C-alpha cells in the first residue's frame, strides 16, 4: 500500500464555497520578512514605505527578535511625496548607508509597499541600477509586499518569485533534480535532506537557500515539490523556466508528509518496497506522537479564520489525522491549482470561505459555537474573552510544523489551548 492511498480519498462531492468581500483582518505581505530575514542568512530586507509599514514589522516581529534584525524601512516623508527630494537619490543614499553599516549583506531586497506602489515608485529598475553599482559584492532585487497586492504569506511568494527569476540555468537540462520550494526551518530541511538521501533521490535543492551563494539551478529536469501552498507566482516563474511541479498534498502530519514524499518517490522511480522501508520508522513515530492529541481533539469542532492559505491543508490534517470536525475553512485565496491534491481529501460539503468580511464571519463563528477557533492575533484575545478557545494562527507560520518529526508538535498547537482551558479553574 502506498502512502498516498493511506489517506482516505473523498468522493468527488463538491465543497461548499462562499466568496466574501468586506473588511479583511489579515496581515500584508511585508510580514513575510519576519521569517525570511532569518531564513536567508546573508540577506537584508529594505522596505520602501511609510511609518505604518515600519510599525507593522516591529509589531509583528515583536518580542521574537533577539538579534539585530536584518530588515529596516526607508520611511518616505512629505518631501519625498511632494517631489522636493528625488526618491531615487534618497534610496541610493540609504542603501549606501545600509551596506556600509552591514558589510555582511550579500543580497538586498527592496520591498515595495502600498505607498510606494500608489506613487508608482519603480523599485525594479532602482534595484537593477543599484545592482550594477554594488556587483559583485551585493545582489539587489525588488518585490512588492504591499497590502493592496499581497496578503500575508503572498509576500514570501513574491520574494521567492523574484529569487526564482535569478536562479542559474541548470547545465545538462535533462538531468533530473528535485527542488523543495518554500521557506522551512533549518531543522526541517535537515530532516528532509536525510530522507531524500536514503530514498536515493537527488540532487535536492531548497528554495530559498540558507545563503544566497547557494542559489539552486533550475531547468527542464527540475521537479518542484512545494512545501507551502501559497507559492503561486513562484511556481509560475519556475515553470516558465522549464521546471515541472509534482502534484502532492503538503507535508503536514504523518500521512500528509508520507504522501508528499511519495509524490517525489514516484517521479524519481523509487521502488515501493524501498520507499516503505525508508519512511516506515518515521511515519510510525509520527503516528504515535499524534495519538494523545487525537484523543483530545477527536470529534471537536474547529473554525478556521483566513490567514496564511495554509488553512485547507491544515483542515485536511485536523479532520483526517486527528478526527476533528470542520465548521468553516477560511482562506484569503482558494488556489485550486496548487491545492489539487488537497481539496479532494477534505470531508464532503465542507464550507470553504474565500476572502473575508470579518464581522459577518464573526457572526457565523459565534452562531456555530465551535470548540476551537483558529484566528489571527487581532481576534484571539477578544474571542477568548467571549469564552471561545482559540489558537493564534501566526504561530503556524513561525513554528516548524512540516515533516514527520513535527507532526506531534503541529497537533499540540491545537490541543494545548483545549488542555489549558480544561486545566484552569479560575
Amino acid at each position: 500500500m502506498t502512502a498516498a492511498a493511506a489517506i482516505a480519498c473523498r468522493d468527488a462531492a463538491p465543497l461548499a464555497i462562499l466568496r466574501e468581500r468586506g473588511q479583511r483582518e489579515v496581515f500584508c505581505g511585508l510580514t513575510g520578512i519576519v521569517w525570511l530575514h532569518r531564513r536567508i542568512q546573508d540577506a537584508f530586507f529594505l522596505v520602501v514605505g511609510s511609518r505604518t509599514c515600519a510599525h507593522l514589522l516591529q509589531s509583528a516581529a515583536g518580542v521574537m527578535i533577539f538579534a539585530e534584525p536584518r530588515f529596516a524601512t526607508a520611511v518616505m516623508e512629505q518631501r519625498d511625496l511632494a517631489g522636493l527630494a528625488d526618491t531615487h537619490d534618497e534610496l541610493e543614499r540609504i542603501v549606501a548607508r545600509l551596506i556600509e553599516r552591514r558589510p555582511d549583506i550579500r543580497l538586498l531586497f527592496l520591498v515595495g509597499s502600498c505607498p510606494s506602489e500608489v506613487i508608482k515608485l519603480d523599485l525594479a529598475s532602482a534595484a537593477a541600477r543599484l545592482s550594477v553599482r554594488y556587483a559583485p559584492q551585493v545582489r539587489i532585487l525588488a518585490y512588492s509586499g504591499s497590502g493592496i497586492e499581497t496578503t500575508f504569506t503572498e509576500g514570501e511568494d513574491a520574494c521567492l518569485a523574484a529569487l526564482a527569476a535569478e536562479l542559474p540555468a541548470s547545465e545538462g537540462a535533462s538531468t533530473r533534480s528535485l527542488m523543495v520550494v518554500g521557506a522551512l526551518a533549518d531543522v526541517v530541511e535537515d530532516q528532509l535532506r536525510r530522507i531524500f538521501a536514503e530514498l536515493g533521490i537527488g540532487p535536492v535543492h531548497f528554495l530559498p537557500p540558507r545563503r544566497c551563494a547557494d542559489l539552486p539551478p533550475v531547468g527542464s529536469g527540475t521537479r518542484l515539490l512545494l512545501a507551502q501552498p501559497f507559492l503561486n507566482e513562484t511556481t509560475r516563474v519556475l515553470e516558465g523556466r522549464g521546471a515541472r511541479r509534482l502534484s502532492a498534498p503538503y507535508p503536514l502530519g504523518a500521512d500528509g508528509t508520507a504522501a508528499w514524499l511519495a509524490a517525489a518517490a514516484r517521479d524519481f522511480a523509487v521502488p515501493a518496497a524501498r520507499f516503505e522501508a525508508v519512511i516506515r520508522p518515521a511515519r510510525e513515530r509520527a503516528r504515535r506522537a499524534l495519538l494523545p492529541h487525537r484523543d483530545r481533539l477527536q470529534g471537536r469542532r474547529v473554525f478556521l479564520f483566513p490567514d496564511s492559505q495554509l488553512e485547507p491543508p491544515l483542515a485536511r490534517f485536523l479532520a483526517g489525522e486527528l478526527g476533528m470536525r470542520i465548521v468553516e475553512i477560511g482562506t484569503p485565496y482558494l488556489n485550486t491549482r496548487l491545492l489539487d491534491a488537497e481539496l479532494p481529501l477534505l470531508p464532503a460539503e465542507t464550507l470553504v470561505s474565500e476572502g473575508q468580511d470579518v464581522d459577518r464571519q464573526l457572526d457565523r463563528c459565534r452562531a456555530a459555537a465551535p470548540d476551537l477557533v483558529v484566528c489571527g492575533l487581532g481576534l484571539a484575545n477578544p474571542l477568548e474573552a467571549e469564552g471561545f478557545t482559540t489558537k493564534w494562527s501566526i504561530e503556524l507560520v513561525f513554528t516548524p510544523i512540516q515533516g514527520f518529526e513535527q507532526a506531534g508538535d503541529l497537533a499540540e498547537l491545537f490541543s494545548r489551548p483545549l488542555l489549558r482551558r480544561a486545566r484552569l479553574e479560575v
Partner: protein
Amino acid sequence: MKLTVWTYEGPPHVGAMRVATAMDGVHYVLHAPQGDTYADLVFTMIERLGKRPPVTYTTFQARDLGADTANLFKTATREACDRFRPDAIIVGASCTAELLQDDPGGLARTLGLPVPVIPLELPSYQRKENWGASETFYQLVRAMCQAEVAPPRADRAGRPVCNILGPTALGFRHRDDVAEVRGLLASLGIAVNVTAPQGARPTDLARLPEADFNVVLYPEIAAVAARWLERSFGQPFTRTVPIGVGATRDFIREVAALAGVDPTPALDDEHSRLPWYSRSVDSTYLTGKRVFVFGDATHAIAAARIAREELGFEVVGLGTYSREFAREVREAAGQLGLEALITDDYLEVEACIADLQPELVLGTQMERHIAKRFRIPCAVISAPVHVQDFPARRSPQMGWEGSNVIFDCWVHPLTMGLEEHLLTMFREDHEFHDAAGPSHLQSEQPRESKPAVAPVSDLAWSGEAETELAKVPFFVRGKARRNTERFARDRGLSVITLETLYDAKAHFGR
C-alpha cells in the same frame, strides 16, 4: 526618506486608535489597506484587551484603486454605523489612503448619519502617534463641547471639581496612574468630574466645561485640548506631572492652589518609601552612578529629576523622541549642563549610548535592546510599550506609590551594594566572574561574554593594559575604558599602557 530600524512611535492613526479604543461609544472608520489591520493586535496582544478596538478598516485593494475606493469607504461607514451604533464616529485615512485623496470627512457627511461625524486630518508623512492621539482628542473635545454651558463649578457636596485628561489605551502605566492620581485628589477633597479619554463617552466630553480646572497627566496627549478648554471656558490646567516624590509634592501644591484648598493634609500623608530607601546606607553605592535617560518628553524630564534629586545619580545624557516637546526637554537638559538628544532615530540613540557608556540606561523598550547588547543595566520608563508594561499588579509611575515602583524598578537591575565590592575583590573566583552577573539577575543576564558592538577607538591598548582592564568589573569597565581613552587623548598619547590606565584612574578617581 529616513532609514528606520525600530520606531518609537507608530503612525498618527494609531494615536487616533488609542483615543477611540480608550473611550466608550466612539467608532473609527479608517480608510486603509488590509495590512493596516495589524494595529488591532497591538491592543489585543500587548495591552491584552478583551475586545477588538472599535475600528472598521475599508481594506481596499489594488483592483479597487482605479474603480471606486470612495464608495467602498461610504459602504464601510454606513455598515459600521448600523452594526456598532456608536454615539459618535470619527473618520480618517491611513498613509496609503491619504495618497488617494478620497476625503473621508466629506464622504461621511454626505451619508446623513444619525450621529456626530468627526473628520480627522492626520498627515501621516509628517506626524506620528502621539500627535495623532493629541489631535484626535482635541477634535473630539471641540466637537462635543460646542454647546454653551453654564458650568456648575462645584459638586453637590460643595467640593471643588476637576477633570483628569490624557490617559489612553496602550499608554505606559496609564491605568494605574489614573487610580493613583484619583487618590491624591481625594485626599485633597477634590471631586473628579470626567476622566478622558479613558473610560469616557462622547456625552461625557460635553460635560468637561463643568469642572473648575483640568489635571493634565500626559501633555503629549492632552495639552492641546487643555489649552483650548482654558481659552474657551476659562479652565486653568496643571503643568506639573506627579512622577517622583518632588514632583508629587509640587503637584499637590499646584492642584491645591487651583482648587483653593489646603495642601497640608495631602502633603503630610506622604507615603513614599523612596526618600528613606535612598538615605539608607545600602543605597550609598547609587551615588554618582552615571545614567542615560531617553523617552517621551514627560517621562524623560521626570526621570532626569528623580535620578538626580531623589537617587543621587549623575545624569550624563537626556533625550526624547517627542519633537513637539523638544523645547521643554532642552530646558531640562540645560539645567543639568547637558545638550538634549532630540531624535527618533534609534541608531543615533544607540551611538550616543555607546559613546557615553553609562552605568544605567533609563529608556524605552528600544533602549532595552541597546542596553542588552552593550551589557548595561536598564529600566524602562516610557512608551513604546511592551506586554511587560501591562503588569498584572498595580504598578503606577505617578504619585507616592509611583515613586516606590520607580525606586524598585531602577535599582533592581543594578548590582547591589556589597556585591559590587565582592565582585571587585574576588574577581578571580571562577563562579564569581563577570559573565555570571549580579546574583539576583541570573536569568536576565545576556549569554554572550562580549558586547555585540565593541566600542570603536582610535587608540591602541597594550596587551598588559587590556588584561588589567578586563579585571575591572564589567559594570564600570565601559566607564574605565572611556575615561582612560579621554585621559590619553588629552595628553596626546597614542598607546595606552598599564601606567596610563592607573594614571587615568588616579585622575578621575571619585
